[in-house]
Every structure is written in structure tokens, then in C-alpha cells.
């Protein structure tokens, strides 16, 4: 089946097998390997991408369901080589150790801040309930997101 979508601002028309997940489409077809895969069951959050601004687990979402939609992956955040404020805040707060979960956390943070530009610390914790970091870096991640919200809406 041929899908028409816009990925990180770029129109994409691609024939794909209907059985493909969104993760297979962005990673294997488009080469956007910033989206990671881990649990494969919507529990860990590393594969989070935005579809029409809404967060989805690319591992468990059919690629055909982005037909007619806009997709944003982690590669779509930086603007002409300069980091998005959320990315910059993650760097400044050392909000990562191994970095594998980071794209998912940043995409969830993007979704949260789009919906709620000045979340409380508790809002951040609640929203990230479905994201797992196994290097135990949650506090710096929360700090980074709160800081990013202040940078983005001073």
C-alpha cells in the first residue's frame, strides 16, 4: 500500500507492506534510526514519535495509520544544526547516561510542553510515567524538562 505522509517537514510518498510498524518505516525505510526500540509493547517509551502532534509508540503502531498525517521523530527537533531547547536542557542537566532512552524522553517532553507549556514537576512525573530509564537518571530528566519549559516560555 502507498502511504502519503510528512516526516519532519518533508513530504514522503512510499509503498510499504501493510504489516509494517511505524518503527520499521522510519528506521528501515527512511533511515531515521534516532527512534530506538526496546520493549515492543508500549511500556518503555524509547520508540516515541509524534503523529499529528500526539505521542505514539512506533513499535506498536501500524505505519499505514500515518497515511495523511504528519510525523515528527527525534531527528525533526533540531533546527539547522542548532539543538531544540529540550535537547539543550538535556545536555545542560546531564539528563542521560547511556542515552538509549533519551530520544523517547525528549519526544514525550515535546508532546507534554506542546500541550502544557508550564508543567509542574508533578505534571512532568505523571506524564513520563510510561518512560523507562535503566541508568536511573530520572531526577536530571525532570530538571531538564522543567528548565526547558522555562526557556521556551520565559
Amino acid at each position, binding site marked *: 500500500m502507498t502511504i502519503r505522509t510528512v516526516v519532519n517537514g518533508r513530504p514522503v510518498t512510499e509503498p510499504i*507492506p501493510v*504489516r509494517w510498524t511505524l518503527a*520499521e518505516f522510519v528506521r528501515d525505510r527512511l533511515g531515521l534510526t534516532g527512534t530506538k526500540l526496546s520493549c*515492543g*509493547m*508500549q511500556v518503555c517509551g524509547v520508540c516515541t514519535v509524534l503523529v499529528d502532534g*500526539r505521542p505514539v509508540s512506533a513499535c506498536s*503502531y*501500524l505505519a499505514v*495509520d500515518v497515511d495523511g498525517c504528519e510525523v515528527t521523530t527525534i531527528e525533526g527537533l533540531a533546527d539547522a544544526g542548532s539543538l531544540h531547547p529540550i535537547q539543550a536542557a538535556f545536555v545542560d542537566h546531564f539528563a542521560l547516561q547511556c542515552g538509549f532512552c533519551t530520544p523517547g524522553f525528549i519526544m514525550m517532553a515535546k508532546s507534554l510542553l506542546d500541550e502544557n507549556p508550564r508543567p509542574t514537576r508533578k505534571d512532568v512525573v505523571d506524564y513520563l510515567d510510561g518512560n523507562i530509564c535503566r541508568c536511573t537518571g530520572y531526577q536530571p530528566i525532570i530538571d531538564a524538562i522543567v528548565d526547558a519549559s522555562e526557556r521556551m516560555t520565559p
Partner: protein
Amino acid sequence: MSVLPPFELHRPTSIEEVVELISWDDLPYVGGTELLLAMRAGLLNPRSLIDLKGVAEITGVRAHNGAVRIGAAVTHQQAATTEVISEKLPELPPVLLHVGNPRVRWSGTLAGNLCFAEPKSDVIPFLIALDATVTLVSADGSREMSVREFIIGPYFTARTEHELLAWIDIPVVPGRRGTYLKYQVMERPTVGVAAVRLDEGDSTITRVVVGAAGEVPVVHDVDHAHPDRSAVATAVVDALEPIDDLTGSSDYKRHVTAVYVERALEKLERM
């Protein structure tokens, strides 16, 4: 190498088209929140998937005949933020906004949750407590039944092969109060307790529905507005058939259930 087995895709635009297609081998989906995981695990290998998102009759929420009617394609997030629900069923959004995580809430539906009949569903006990019904449509007609009757066992419902769960009706009862509390340390709750108080003629009923701890929800009605919390907790735990699993042993679940029944009733008293 693809993670999902091959299947065909249908994109119908009417219930009539869906019920022509639907079978145990041709499964409806919206987000695929539960279905794709089952396919990936090799538990289901359908010939085709039927995308319900293009069926306009079941994509919305509306007031209908003293109830709120939630179409099969309505996601948890959509329902939780729909005006008619905030207005007429204010007790529902807080429950829906604690289902799974934001990604699950954006793609998963209430109807899908019911059809999957996961014993750890948050939605099922609360919908039972609210006396919700489902309407099953087939090419031969339609039938309505309570959610309580619909959920037969773990992953097992009253839906037959050629039926579509088209919508859920939740009666709007003025003055009804309801709450849902769950205890959860991992992805799924150890126990979820729905507590609802409603006036029925001259009397007031307090209803407690316990999910997650056992295979099917336990429903306990008390003919009193302010029942003795400890007595209710004891009666509910007596009726409970908890199973040992990753969220706790059966003894542990009995203990946590008693605590959460009392807390839910205490919260209800303040509402």
C-alpha cells in the same frame, strides 16, 4: 524481517461494511494497542484487520437517551477531553487519564479495552460500576447488554464471531458520585477499586467493583449511603478470588484490596 505476520487491510466507512467483513479471522482495530501485541507474540494471526477509524458513526461521543454514547473508535484521551463527558460524566475523565500511559491513551479505545477483556483493565470495573452497556451489531441486527454481562472471563467476552461492539452507553444519573483508586507499582495494577454512590428511588446504593486482583471483577452492592467501610472491605475480600501473579500473591492482594476498598469508600464519602 517484519515483527508482525502478514495480513490484509480494510478501510470501511460504514458499520454495514464492517459487519460484512468481521469474523474471528478478520478483526476490527483502531490503535491496535492490544491487538498488535497479541499478533506480535504469535497469539493471533488474522487474515485481515478492519480499520474502524473511517467509520463516522462510531468516531464520536454524544448524549443519547439519558446516556452518553461513546463510539467504538473513540480513544481514552478523546473521551477524557470531550465536552459532553466533562459535563455529564465528570467522574470518568480522571479514570481515563490514568489508563496506561499517554501513548496508550492517544491510540487505545474504551471499546477495544472491553473487547480485549484484560483482567487488569482500569476501564472495565469503572464501567461496570456506572451500569454501562455495550451494543453489539451484526448483519442480522443488534443487541444491547451490560458490561457486567459482556465480560465473561479473562480475555473472554460475550461478543460472537460476526458482531462489532459499536458503542458504549453510560447512563447519566444526576447526583451520582464515583471514584476509582488503584494500587500499581509496575505497568499493571495489583488492584483497582471503583466505588459509586447512587440514589435509587427512596434508597441509596453504594457499589464497589474490584478489578485486577482476580480473573473477573467482583461487584458488591450495599443498600446504604454511608456503609461501614471495614464491613464492606471484609465482604468484598471474601468474594474475591485473587490469583498469584507478578503484581502480588493472592494473600497480598486480599490485604491490598481491603485497604483500597476502605480508601475508595472514604474518598467517596467526601464527594
